[in-house]
Protein backbone atom coordinates (compact mmCIF):
# COMPACT_ATOMS: atom_id res chain seq x y z
CA UNK A 1 0.00 0.00 0.00
CA UNK A 2 1.50 3.31 -1.03
CA UNK A 3 1.63 6.13 1.48
CA UNK A 4 0.91 9.59 0.18
CA UNK A 5 3.82 11.90 0.67
CA UNK A 6 2.49 14.84 2.62
CA UNK A 7 5.82 16.60 2.94
CA UNK A 8 6.07 19.76 0.87
CA UNK A 9 8.69 19.60 -1.85
CA UNK A 10 12.03 21.20 -1.14
CA UNK A 11 12.76 24.50 -2.72
CA UNK A 12 16.42 24.61 -3.62
CA UNK A 13 17.64 28.17 -3.50
CA UNK A 14 20.67 28.72 -5.68
CA UNK A 15 21.69 31.57 -3.43
CA UNK A 16 20.15 33.91 -0.91
CA UNK A 17 17.46 36.03 -2.49
CA UNK A 18 18.69 39.50 -3.31
CA UNK A 19 17.38 41.77 -0.60
CA UNK A 20 15.45 44.86 -1.63
CA UNK A 21 18.19 46.96 -0.01
CA UNK A 22 20.75 45.47 -2.36
CA UNK A 23 18.77 46.15 -5.51
CA UNK A 24 19.70 49.81 -5.97
CA UNK A 25 23.30 48.62 -6.43
CA UNK A 26 22.36 46.28 -9.27
CA UNK A 27 23.89 47.13 -12.61
CA UNK A 28 21.65 49.46 -14.57
CA UNK A 29 19.87 48.00 -17.59
CA UNK A 30 21.39 48.82 -20.94
CA UNK A 31 18.92 50.71 -23.05
CA UNK A 32 17.22 48.72 -25.75
CA UNK A 33 18.43 45.34 -24.57
CA UNK A 34 15.03 43.75 -24.83
CA UNK A 35 12.99 43.96 -27.98
CA UNK A 36 10.00 42.70 -25.99
CA UNK A 37 9.71 45.90 -23.98
CA UNK A 38 7.31 48.12 -25.87
CA UNK A 39 8.14 51.78 -26.35
CA UNK A 40 5.48 53.51 -24.29
CA UNK A 41 3.58 56.60 -25.24
CA UNK A 42 5.17 59.36 -23.17
CA UNK A 43 1.93 61.35 -23.24
CA UNK A 44 0.53 59.40 -20.34
CA UNK A 45 -2.83 59.24 -18.72
CA UNK A 46 -3.67 61.76 -15.99
CA UNK A 47 -2.86 60.79 -12.42
CA UNK A 48 -4.97 57.67 -12.08
CA UNK A 49 -7.50 58.56 -9.42
CA UNK A 50 -9.73 55.78 -10.67
CA UNK A 51 -7.25 53.18 -9.51
CA UNK A 52 -8.01 51.78 -6.09
CA UNK A 53 -5.60 52.64 -3.31
CA UNK A 54 -5.78 49.00 -2.28
CA UNK A 55 -7.63 46.15 -3.92
CA UNK A 56 -8.44 44.15 -0.86
CA UNK A 57 -9.60 41.18 -2.90
CA UNK A 58 -5.97 40.74 -3.96
CA UNK A 59 -4.87 40.48 -0.33
CA UNK A 60 -7.79 38.10 0.32
CA UNK A 61 -6.56 35.91 -2.50
CA UNK A 62 -3.05 35.93 -1.06
CA UNK A 63 -4.50 34.79 2.27
CA UNK A 64 -6.20 31.87 0.55
CA UNK A 65 -3.02 31.03 -1.34
CA UNK A 66 -0.46 31.17 1.44
CA UNK A 67 -2.11 32.31 4.63
CA UNK A 68 -0.65 34.62 7.21
CA UNK A 69 2.91 33.59 6.35
CA UNK A 70 2.71 34.63 2.71
CA UNK A 71 0.81 37.85 3.34
CA UNK A 72 3.17 38.77 6.16
CA UNK A 73 6.28 38.09 4.09
CA UNK A 74 5.02 40.09 1.11
CA UNK A 75 4.01 43.04 3.25
CA UNK A 76 7.35 42.90 5.07
CA UNK A 77 9.28 42.89 1.80
CA UNK A 78 7.16 45.69 0.43
CA UNK A 79 7.51 47.89 3.51
CA UNK A 80 11.23 47.20 3.79
CA UNK A 81 11.96 47.94 0.17
CA UNK A 82 9.56 50.68 -0.85
CA UNK A 83 11.04 53.61 1.11
CA UNK A 84 14.49 52.98 -0.35
CA UNK A 85 13.15 52.66 -3.86
CA UNK A 86 11.05 55.80 -3.52
CA UNK A 87 14.07 57.68 -2.19
CA UNK A 88 16.13 56.39 -5.11
CA UNK A 89 13.43 57.53 -7.54
CA UNK A 90 13.29 61.00 -6.00
CA UNK A 91 17.09 61.34 -6.15
CA UNK A 92 17.23 60.03 -9.68
CA UNK A 93 14.50 62.41 -10.83
CA UNK A 94 16.40 65.34 -9.31
CA UNK A 95 19.57 64.17 -11.04
CA UNK A 96 17.88 63.56 -14.39
CA UNK A 97 18.88 59.87 -14.17
CA UNK A 98 16.27 58.18 -16.32
CA UNK A 99 17.64 54.60 -16.17
CA UNK A 100 17.55 54.60 -12.37
CA UNK A 101 14.01 55.99 -12.31
CA UNK A 102 12.97 53.31 -14.78
CA UNK A 103 14.64 50.45 -12.91
CA UNK A 104 13.41 51.41 -9.44
CA UNK A 105 9.88 52.24 -10.61
CA UNK A 106 9.67 48.91 -12.42
CA UNK A 107 10.70 46.96 -9.33
CA UNK A 108 8.38 48.89 -7.03
CA UNK A 109 5.51 48.50 -9.50
CA UNK A 110 5.86 44.75 -9.23
CA UNK A 111 5.81 44.74 -5.42
CA UNK A 112 2.87 47.12 -5.26
CA UNK A 113 0.89 45.14 -7.81
CA UNK A 114 1.42 41.87 -5.96
CA UNK A 115 -0.36 43.36 -2.95
CA UNK A 116 -3.13 45.12 -4.86
CA UNK A 117 -1.79 48.64 -4.23
CA UNK A 118 -3.02 49.68 -7.63
CA UNK A 119 -2.62 53.43 -7.41
CA UNK A 120 1.04 52.94 -6.52
CA UNK A 121 1.26 50.45 -9.36
CA UNK A 122 -0.16 53.00 -11.79
CA UNK A 123 2.15 55.77 -10.58
CA UNK A 124 5.16 53.49 -10.97
CA UNK A 125 3.95 52.56 -14.44
CA UNK A 126 3.86 56.21 -15.43
CA UNK A 127 7.29 56.90 -13.96
CA UNK A 128 8.75 53.86 -15.69
CA UNK A 129 7.16 54.74 -19.02
CA UNK A 130 8.36 58.33 -18.97
CA UNK A 131 11.84 57.41 -17.84
CA UNK A 132 12.20 54.72 -20.50
CA UNK A 133 11.89 57.33 -23.25
CA UNK A 134 13.87 60.00 -21.42
CA UNK A 135 10.80 62.08 -20.68
CA UNK A 136 11.47 63.23 -17.13
CA UNK A 137 9.29 66.30 -17.07
CA UNK A 138 6.57 66.07 -14.43
CA UNK A 139 8.22 62.97 -12.94
CA UNK A 140 9.04 64.96 -9.80
CA UNK A 141 5.33 65.46 -9.16
CA UNK A 142 4.66 61.78 -9.86
CA UNK A 143 7.46 60.72 -7.53
CA UNK A 144 6.10 62.86 -4.70
CA UNK A 145 2.65 61.50 -5.33
CA UNK A 146 4.10 58.00 -5.14
CA UNK A 147 5.63 58.85 -1.78
CA UNK A 148 2.28 60.09 -0.45
CA UNK A 149 0.50 57.06 -1.82
CA UNK A 150 2.89 54.71 -0.04
CA UNK A 151 2.20 56.52 3.24
CA UNK A 152 -1.51 56.07 2.60
CA UNK A 153 -1.48 52.41 1.59
CA UNK A 154 1.03 51.11 4.13
CA UNK A 155 -1.25 51.30 7.21
CA UNK A 156 -4.09 49.79 5.20
CA UNK A 157 -1.90 46.84 4.30
CA UNK A 158 -0.95 46.38 7.93
CA UNK A 159 -4.65 46.50 8.74
CA UNK A 160 -5.29 43.72 6.23
CA UNK A 161 -2.57 41.62 7.83
CA UNK A 162 -4.10 42.03 11.25
CA UNK A 163 -7.44 40.99 9.78
CA UNK A 164 -9.01 44.41 10.28
Amino acid at each position, binding site marked *: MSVMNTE*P*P*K*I*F*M*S*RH*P*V*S*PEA*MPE*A*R*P*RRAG*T*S*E*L*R*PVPDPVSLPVPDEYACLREE*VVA*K*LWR*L*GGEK*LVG*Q*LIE*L*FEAGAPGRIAAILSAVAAGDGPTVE*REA*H*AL*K*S*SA*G*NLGAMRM*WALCQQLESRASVGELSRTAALAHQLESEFERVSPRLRGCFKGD
Partner: protein
Amino acid sequence: MKRIAVIEDNPDNRLLVEAILEDHYELVEFDNGPEALAQMRNDPPDLVLLDISLPGMDGTEVLRAMRSDPILGAIPTIALTAHAMAGDRDRFLAAGFDDYVTKPLVDEEVLLGAIANQLGREQRRSA
Protein backbone atom coordinates in the same frame (compact mmCIF):
# COMPACT_ATOMS: atom_id res chain seq x y z
CA MET B 1 7.87 15.48 -9.85
CA LYS B 2 8.64 17.95 -12.63
CA ARG B 3 11.23 20.59 -11.86
CA ILE B 4 10.85 24.24 -12.74
CA ALA B 5 13.60 26.86 -12.81
CA VAL B 6 12.38 30.31 -11.77
CA ILE B 7 14.64 33.13 -12.95
CA GLU B 8 13.36 36.30 -11.30
CA ASP B 9 15.28 39.04 -9.51
CA ASN B 10 12.39 40.45 -7.48
CA PRO B 11 12.06 38.55 -4.18
CA ASP B 12 8.33 39.40 -3.91
CA ASN B 13 7.66 37.75 -7.24
CA ARG B 14 9.74 34.71 -6.34
CA LEU B 15 7.79 34.38 -3.11
CA LEU B 16 4.50 34.50 -4.94
CA VAL B 17 5.61 31.99 -7.55
CA GLU B 18 6.78 29.67 -4.77
CA ALA B 19 3.42 29.93 -3.03
CA ILE B 20 1.58 29.08 -6.25
CA LEU B 21 3.84 26.25 -7.41
CA GLU B 22 5.47 24.60 -4.39
CA ASP B 23 2.74 22.01 -3.87
CA HIS B 24 2.82 21.00 -7.53
CA TYR B 25 6.46 21.17 -8.68
CA GLU B 26 10.00 21.04 -7.46
CA LEU B 27 11.48 24.53 -7.77
CA VAL B 28 14.96 25.89 -8.25
CA GLU B 29 15.33 29.66 -8.11
CA PHE B 30 17.78 32.18 -9.48
CA ASP B 31 17.96 35.94 -9.31
CA ASN B 32 20.23 36.44 -12.32
CA GLY B 33 20.68 35.05 -15.80
CA PRO B 34 24.36 34.00 -15.87
CA GLU B 35 24.10 31.88 -12.73
CA ALA B 36 20.87 30.34 -13.94
CA LEU B 37 22.42 29.35 -17.26
CA ALA B 38 25.47 27.83 -15.61
CA GLN B 39 23.43 25.80 -13.12
CA MET B 40 20.81 24.72 -15.64
CA ARG B 41 23.47 23.33 -17.97
CA ASN B 42 24.57 21.04 -15.15
CA ASP B 43 21.06 20.04 -14.19
CA PRO B 44 18.45 20.98 -16.80
CA PRO B 45 14.94 21.68 -15.49
CA ASP B 46 11.73 20.54 -17.15
CA LEU B 47 10.52 24.09 -17.66
CA VAL B 48 11.78 27.63 -17.12
CA LEU B 49 9.88 30.67 -15.85
CA LEU B 50 11.89 33.65 -17.00
CA ASP B 51 11.50 37.28 -15.98
CA ILE B 52 11.96 39.61 -18.93
CA SER B 53 13.32 42.50 -16.86
CA LEU B 54 16.35 40.98 -15.19
CA PRO B 55 19.18 43.37 -14.33
CA GLY B 56 22.30 43.04 -16.44
CA MET B 57 21.62 40.11 -18.77
CA ASP B 58 17.88 40.49 -19.35
CA GLY B 59 15.34 37.77 -20.05
CA THR B 60 15.54 37.91 -23.83
CA GLU B 61 19.33 37.56 -23.69
CA VAL B 62 18.98 34.59 -21.34
CA LEU B 63 16.47 33.01 -23.71
CA ARG B 64 18.77 33.59 -26.67
CA ALA B 65 21.58 31.84 -24.80
CA MET B 66 19.27 28.95 -23.93
CA ARG B 67 17.99 28.47 -27.48
CA SER B 68 21.52 28.32 -28.83
CA ASP B 69 22.62 25.78 -26.23
CA PRO B 70 22.32 22.08 -27.08
CA ILE B 71 21.42 21.17 -23.49
CA LEU B 72 18.94 23.98 -22.82
CA GLY B 73 17.62 24.72 -26.29
CA ALA B 74 14.41 22.69 -26.19
CA ILE B 75 13.29 23.43 -22.62
CA PRO B 76 9.81 25.02 -22.58
CA THR B 77 10.20 28.60 -21.39
CA ILE B 78 7.46 30.92 -20.20
CA ALA B 79 8.11 34.65 -19.94
CA LEU B 80 7.10 36.48 -16.78
CA THR B 81 6.46 40.04 -17.81
CA ALA B 82 4.86 43.22 -16.61
CA HIS B 83 4.94 44.63 -20.13
CA ALA B 84 2.48 42.50 -22.07
CA MET B 85 -0.38 44.22 -23.83
CA ALA B 86 -3.02 42.99 -26.25
CA GLY B 87 -1.37 41.63 -29.38
CA ASP B 88 1.94 40.91 -27.70
CA ARG B 89 1.58 37.15 -27.85
CA ASP B 90 3.08 36.92 -31.36
CA ARG B 91 6.07 39.02 -30.31
CA PHE B 92 6.85 36.74 -27.41
CA LEU B 93 6.49 33.64 -29.55
CA ALA B 94 8.64 35.19 -32.27
CA ALA B 95 11.32 35.88 -29.66
CA GLY B 96 11.40 32.19 -28.83
CA PHE B 97 9.23 31.96 -25.74
CA ASP B 98 6.65 29.22 -25.59
CA ASP B 99 4.17 31.36 -23.68
CA TYR B 100 4.02 34.34 -21.36
CA VAL B 101 2.28 35.26 -18.12
CA THR B 102 1.73 38.83 -17.04
CA LYS B 103 2.65 40.25 -13.69
CA PRO B 104 1.33 40.92 -11.10
CA LEU B 105 0.35 37.27 -10.69
CA VAL B 106 -3.16 37.93 -9.45
CA ASP B 107 -4.75 34.71 -10.71
CA GLU B 108 -2.70 31.63 -9.87
CA GLU B 109 -4.71 29.51 -12.31
CA VAL B 110 -3.23 31.44 -15.23
CA LEU B 111 0.32 30.48 -14.25
CA LEU B 112 -0.62 26.90 -13.36
CA GLY B 113 -2.48 26.51 -16.64
CA ALA B 114 0.36 27.89 -18.74
CA ILE B 115 2.84 25.53 -17.09
CA ALA B 116 0.57 22.49 -17.39
CA ASN B 117 0.01 23.30 -21.04
CA GLN B 118 3.70 23.46 -21.82
CA LEU B 119 4.60 20.36 -19.84
CA GLY B 120 1.76 18.50 -21.50
CA ARG B 121 3.05 19.49 -24.92
CA GLU B 122 6.54 18.40 -23.99
CA GLN B 123 5.24 15.04 -22.84
CA ARG B 124 3.40 14.53 -26.13
CA ARG B 125 6.54 15.53 -28.09
CA SER B 126 8.62 12.98 -26.19
CA ALA B 127 6.11 10.17 -26.61
